[in-house]
């Protein structure tokens, strides 16, 4: 099935309570698949086509604030519209899952694939000091697997989690093993797991308030510091990455998502030509596998960051490598997906 369809199936199977979204290419198959599957008749999951991405993300805020497992999906311009709501969710410390099947920008851009929302996803994207947990799938299988993972992380840390995919992975068809079926949580379970959630104040507790607002600067600073401490905890525990053929490598290609798939092929070609090259694939883009890259930089002669953008993740790679070895970038723009051969040629340039 398609990557987009896998997201829809996985959401139902992992016990999601609600989907709120607005159609946009190249990810409309997600809401279309959900509409076809009618989960409200089976698991009771709510599926609602909202009036805009702005409404979708605020529905996510409402649903998450009420303790439910809710997700929304969109593509780049739509996710740009959602940034206000994502910042509010981060500020109110709400768990929720946002899927971005990226397309080229800026502005209306193109409907073709891109990875140009890396900065937007990993730097917060909206106003204020915050981070969103960002997972980058490189296969249809990971599209399916990361839905539940994103929910687990989101609820563990009370923080929005994003699956940063792109038009290649969303539209690509592959075999996939769908995740096991998890029932939706009962009211009792939600009460236990989310004592902060708002679904009616019972006599045994004070009212729960979901808000990101605080006018006293001292209190607001404390809230921010607590969030920063939480982000540090996420950095310490949730870094995910994959290394391929790095053991004997002189050079490493650093790539995520669909670019990592292309880089795998580039590595095969380069190895056939006798170039010892490996792949480092960050799976969490935030938290970024900084330490692992710092270590790897001690063993190689250089790194090529291959992205489908003008050079975004390269900044994080350079920060991690900190000048130890040369770090170069190669990318294509405007919705063009790079060929493996192009990556190999650029690798040779830096040798």
């Amino acid at each position: 099935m398609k990557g987009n369809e896998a997201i829809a199936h996985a959401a139902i199977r992992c016990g999601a309570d609600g989907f709120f979204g607005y159609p946009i290419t190249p990810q409309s198959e997600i809401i279309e698949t959900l509409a076809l599957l009618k989960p409200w008749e089976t698991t009771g999951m709510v599926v609602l086509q909202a009036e805009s991405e702005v409404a979708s993300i605020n529905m996510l805020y409402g649903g998450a604030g009420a303790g439910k497992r809710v997700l929304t999906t969109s593509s780049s311009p739509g996710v740009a519209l959602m940034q206000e709501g994502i910042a509010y969710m981060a500020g109110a410390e709400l768990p929720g899952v946002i899927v971005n099947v990226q397309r080229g920008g800026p502005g209306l851009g193109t409907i073709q694939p891109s990875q140009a929302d890396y900065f937007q996803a990993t730097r917060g994207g909206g106003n204020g000091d915050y981070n969103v947990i960002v997972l980058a799938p490189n296969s249809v299988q990971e599209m399916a697997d990361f839905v539940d993972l994103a929910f687990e992380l989101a609820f563990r840390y009370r923080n929005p989690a994003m699956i940063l995919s792109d038009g290649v992975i969303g539209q690509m068809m592959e075999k996939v093993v769908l995740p096991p079926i998890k029932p939706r949580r009962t009211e009792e379970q939600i009460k236990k797991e989310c004592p902060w959630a708002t679904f009616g104040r019972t006599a045994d507790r004070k009212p729960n308030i979901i808000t990101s607002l605080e006018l006293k600067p001292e209190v607001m600073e404390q809230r921010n510091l607590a969030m920063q401490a939480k982000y540090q905890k996420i950095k310490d525990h949730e870094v995910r990455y994959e290394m391929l053929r790095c053991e004997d490598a002189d050079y490493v290609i650093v790539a995520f998502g669909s670019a990592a798939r292309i880089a795998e092929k580039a590595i095969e070609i380069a190895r056939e030509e006798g170039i010892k090259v490996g792949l480092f694939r960050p799976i969490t883009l935030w938290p970024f596998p900084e330490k692992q890259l710092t270590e790897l930089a001690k063993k190689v002669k250089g790194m090529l960051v291959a992205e489908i953008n003008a050079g975004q993740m390269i900044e994080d790679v350079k920060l991690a490598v900190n000048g130890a070895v040369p770090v170069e970038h190669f990318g294509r723009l405007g919705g063009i997906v790079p060929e493996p051969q192009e990556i190999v040629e650029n690798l040779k340039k830096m040798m």
Partner: protein
Amino acid sequence: MNEDIISPENLVYEKPKLMNDTPMHYCAGCSHGVVHKLVAEVIEEMGMEEKTVGVCPVGCAVFAYRYLDIDWQEAAHGRAPAVATAIKRLWPDRLVFTYQGDGDLACIGTCETIHALNRGENIPIIFINNAIYGMTGGQMAPTTLIGQKTATCPYGRDSKIHGYPLKITELAAQLDGTCYVTRQSVETVAAIRQTKKAIRKAFEASMHGKGSSLVEVVSTCNSGWKMSPVKANEWLEEHMLEFYHKGDLKDTTGL
């Protein structure tokens, strides 16, 4: 003499229990407090204290959650109907309402308001229309009257420059998703009693799955209008109610 009367068995009116003792940040004489009390009274009378979620706006009522001891969510500016949509759909047996001002509901959140109402979400929307932006210091609202002076139309609202005041309640009455659309006010005891009945009907309608309701409450902002609270009530009757006609615009609830 009074000591004989002031005794629990003679009690006929007190602040609703859901309204806590936190002093409200509203200016002296602000209509918000009156409507807050009515909302609290209706929730108590319906016995829904433990099953209610309120959604408050950005604007003067941004801190509504401090005053009524129910669960609350603070929405982004204008997005309360979207927030409430999700809560209600995911917790259908809860009473979920929004409380919004004119800037929040009829300007920045027009899209969310119209679509939530048109989908027939089972949420009542309480709409405080005081024809001005109170929280930011008295700027023009979408509902500011023609000729009315505010900080951003200091020479009076001029339709050629600023367009016309928006009668969003009339608009809501045209939507198939709404079951109850009404315009009330809170400047007199009689008006307050009527408004309470309207809020009760809207809340009941949502719990009976009748669709969405909009209760506009024509209100005063004496600070923004630069008048005494008593004078503001008079001005409301003379000017606001002349343009914003009171009464039920639609009622298909059968309640």
